């Protein structure tokens, strides 16, 4: 993934018309948006579950690092790449704090 590196200050959120859905038939969480259904793995679902329109990327990474007892830097890079990819597809909106 080679998108632009997102600053840790950025506050990502799900725009209207994009939402998380619990797919009971396939047994996995899905991100639903216009003509898109993105099946999520547990990591993706955990990241998107943190998006509340207030937390910054940095805060989200810190929370996940704590929850999974993982190095914050590594998590931060994963979170930024994942969010940047979804933003490029207009499934996540990027705002400022």
């Amino acid at each position, binding site marked *: 993934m080679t998108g632009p590196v997102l600053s840790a200050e950025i506050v990502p959120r799900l725009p209207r018309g994009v939402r998380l859905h619990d797919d009971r038939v396939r047994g996995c969480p899905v991100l639903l948006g216009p003509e898109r259904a993105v099946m999520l793995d547990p990591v993706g679902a955990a990241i998107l579950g943190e998006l509340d329109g207030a937390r910054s990327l940095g805060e989200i990474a810190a929370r996940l690092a704590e929850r999974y007892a993982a190095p914050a830097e590594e998590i931060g890079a994963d979170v930024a790449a994942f969010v940047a990819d979804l933003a490029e*597809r207009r499934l996540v909106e990027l705002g400022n704090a």
Partner: protein
Amino acid sequence: MPDDVARQVPPPPVALLAELTHRCPLSCPYCSNPVEMVPRGSEMNTADWARVFDEAAALGVLQLHLSGGEPAARRDLEDLVAAARGAGLYVNLITSGLGLTEARLDALEAAGLDHVQLSLQGVRPEVSDRIGGVAGAFDRKMALARSVVARGLPLTLNAVMHRHNLDDLPATIMLAEALGARRIEVACVQFHGWAAINRAGLMPTRAQTEAAKATVAAARARLKGRLVIDFVPPDYHADFPKSCMGGWGSTGLNVAPDGTVLPCHAAQSIPGMTFPNVREVPLALAWAHSPAFNAFRGTDWMPEPCRSCDRRSIDQGGCRCQALAILGDAAAPDPVCRRTPGRAQLDRLLAGLPGPEAAPAPLTPRAAVR
């Protein structure tokens, strides 16, 4: 034909296209609805559709496309949206924009509508209104687009392109950008239903097709992260067929206004096939076990050269309805494919169409049905 009873249950579908009605105020010459339409009196009622939505969600459908005809011709559209959202589906409304007042939009929004997909017949009012056959339609569409965006709902422009408007593609993409649409679908006409009657007038030239591909590539780079561009190029000029519906009976299904369950929009053109009706059988049964859905599912049905081709899981042998329309055989490989003998037939047909220097053939509008 493979034995449909012994098969295992196929993976669940992702999308359901609900053709709520064939009624429509427009009279587009490229209408993909069947030449023989379902009359109003045979349309399913609110409760029937609500049951279909529940069954679809239980089967694994995630995306619901409310389509037609013009879905707003149904007075119960708001109730249908509420029922679909209640079933847990993502609700996409595919509309011409005509018949959607502000009050109705308020109600649809309150009912939980997720996304609006607005059809566009052209970027210039005179082209748009000539193609759609309704004076003033363009202005009404623009008003609807602005209202949807102002509400914060995602808007997709669905631009149907053909010989008469493909040169306006750059302006079409700019319009989507200016309106604040999140997505544009640049769909070159497919020759099914009524559209087949107008093939000579609608088929873009090869030069138009190449220019359109370049325009889309440049716009995608420029608008990354701002506007999602989905592009369906005219496949007659391609070397390989497109994957139709991601494969027959693999990712999506359609329900016609009278409850007929179809593997694709045009499947009813295939003679000798009987399709299940959701008024008589559960949707899950129609999906998994009806002979119609199993007829072209997977790769067992394929003739050579598809059967041993390295692209068979990429394009699944292409479109069954196109094979039927051009070759008279729904079980043949899609004649777009240059690896198959059927291509010669398609080339003969292309050679007989008006060339780039000739004026495009006139279009026969379909009569509006109210």
